[in-house]
């Protein structure tokens, strides 16, 4: 049983390894692609969830909240979420449910009226640098909005500024793209492995040789998917290593964090390969595989949150991104790489990937074409 799977695995792997140019493309392309795209995509953000903890009920606080609501209803950069206490809000922030938490301290209104420095605290989820600065900017403008009508206090109110505190070590924009680069490299490798090899065999008429042997669907499908996974893991590990070296990002959290990264990469690779096998396993020409994969790349990668926060999408795209395996791969990698080894934040995403991959494996074996 295993012997036959490994025989299929070895054949498929040898063919790919002996064509190193294609493998090189799978490594270089995502690096170049993201370098270019990552630097050219910067549009307005909307709907970033901002938790507000108001420990003061005075008039200035109400005006500040009013200004924030104006932003929520106007440019809609933020979406206000009332929180009862700081602990709950901070927990949500760490879990990725909030993009920022604004804490209005007690006596904020009275301090302001007395001309004393009043400093609301803003905590931002700097894992996503663009979203963090958008939240910060929104709060800054709300604060300056309430200062406008209070012109008479202006000279005394020089310190009514927001003090922003990032909850994780700083992530710059290039570094924040690394999960996307890795997911892209996984996708690239699935284009030159798995279904592509299977369809190429059919196209060349080579599959007639092994279809007349006692290999079962499971042997063929699993052998080809596992060799694809092997190749994909190798290329995306190289991409991850280069990305980490170039940006200085490190994996914190010890062996477990490495294990989670490895799990995410393996599950994503296997799941994506199996998915393309379901979609393309029966195609007759390798050109079809190329065309459909190009299309898949666009519709999976851009809504994945790799380049741009999911909050910037219209509702329908957000809904799609929730079932997009690449979204969960990106989110899981971000959690491990940038949330200081907080593995709990990755659990939900890894669970999704495991279910997705399992379903695709079953489906691809069931739909495999065993005859000519």
């Amino acid at each position, binding site marked *: 049983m295993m012997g036959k799977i490994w025989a299929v695995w070895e054949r498929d792997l040898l063919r790919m390894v002996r064509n190193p140019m294609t493998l090189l493309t799978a490594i270089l392309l995502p690096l170049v692609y993201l370098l270019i795209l990552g630097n050219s995509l910067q549009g307005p953000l909307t709907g970033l969830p901002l938790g507000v903890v108001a420990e003061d009920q005075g008039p200035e606080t109400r005006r500040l909240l009013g200004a924030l609501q104006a932003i929520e209803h106007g440019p809609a950069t933020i979406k206000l979420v009332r929180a009862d206490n700081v602990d709950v809000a901070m927990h949500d922030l760490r879990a990725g449910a909030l993009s920022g938490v604004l804490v209005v301290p007690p006596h904020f209104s009275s301090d302001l009226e007395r001309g004393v420095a009043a400093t609301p605290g803003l905590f931002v989820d700097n894992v996503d640098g663009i979203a963090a600065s958008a939240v910060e900017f929104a709060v800054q403008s709300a604060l300056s909005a309430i200062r406008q009508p209070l012109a008479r206090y202006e000279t005394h109110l020089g310190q009514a500024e927001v003090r922003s505190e990032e909850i994780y070590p700083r992530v710059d924009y290039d570094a924040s793209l690394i999960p996307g680069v890795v997911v892209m490299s996984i996708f690239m490798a699935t284009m030159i492995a798995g279904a592509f090899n299977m369809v190429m065999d059919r196209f060349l008429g080579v599959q007639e*040789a092994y279809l007349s042997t006692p290999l079962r669907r499971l*042997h063929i499908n699993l052998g080809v998917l596992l060799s694809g996974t092997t190749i994909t893991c190798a290329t995306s590990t190289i991409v991850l290593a280069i990305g980490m070296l170039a940006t200085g990002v490190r994996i914190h959290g010890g062996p477990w964090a490495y294990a989670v990264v490895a799990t995410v990469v393996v599950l994503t690779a296997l799941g994506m390969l199996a998915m393309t096998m379901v979609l393309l396993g029966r195609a007759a020409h390798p050109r079809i595989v190329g065309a459909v994969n190009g299309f898949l790349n666009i519709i999976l990668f851009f809504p994945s949150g790799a380049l741009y926060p999911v909050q910037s999408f219209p509702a329908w795209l957000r809904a799609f991104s929730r079932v997009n395996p690449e979204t969960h791969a990106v989110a899981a990698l971000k959690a491990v790489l940038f949330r200081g080894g907080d593995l709990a934040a990755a659990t939900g995403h890894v669970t999704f990937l495991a279910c997705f991959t399992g379903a695709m494996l079953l489906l691809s074996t069931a739909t495999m074409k065993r005859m000519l």
Partner: protein
Amino acid sequence: MTPAIEARALTKRFGAFTAVDAVDLRVEEGELFGLLGPNGAGKTTLVRMLTGLLAITSGEARIAGVDVRTDPDGVRQVLGVVPQALTSDLDLTAYENMDIYARYFGVDRGARRVRIEELLTRTGLWERRKELVSKFSGGMRRRLEIVRGLIHKPRVLFLDEPTIGLDPQSRLVIWDILRDLRKGDSLTISLTTHYLEEAEALCGRVAIVDAGRIVALGTIAELKELVPGSRNLEDVFIHFAGRSLREEGAPKGGPPARRGR
């Protein structure tokens, strides 16, 4: 005795087109059986159904008594197939091609080594076993693929035009291999060919296939008797399959045998 190959009313339709039309066939164990017929006659389609590669539209097929439809895996275990197209992997060496193929049949490591050396030596490829097949000539590749089909000691071997495009020397080498094979065990061979002298040299009985039907069947001597005045198999072939190109649908030269359109 159970026949090695048995077909009953075996039929294949591609849409409205009938490629193989209710073929009945019985080949005994140890025979070297020839399948002749013009291009597009349905030989490959027939072989593909018998080897479980193509879904059977209707009828029955058995290999060594095992039903192709109900137990395709059982059939594949006793079957050796050398397809019409070249199917070895160019990016793999000759040895790797043989070894991986043997593993598909679950041949264990020790037996694989012995068998590969024996088969590659027999075809003069042992010295070049570590070379990529992409470096092989067409003849070398053919030889490799013929012995690859024997790696698991099949009981029935199907060869679909194994000598096509080979020079006379290479063809003789392959003939020798096939003759050798018949001597040893009770291997049954079905050989598809366009070379009539090949059929005369090797085959016991032959079937002439035309437009999806078997139009003549018997030993070469029997067939010659059927066609008065025929000197060789070519005369017989022309008599049954006609002179004109089948694809053109032109009227046929020879007297028509019962043939459905």
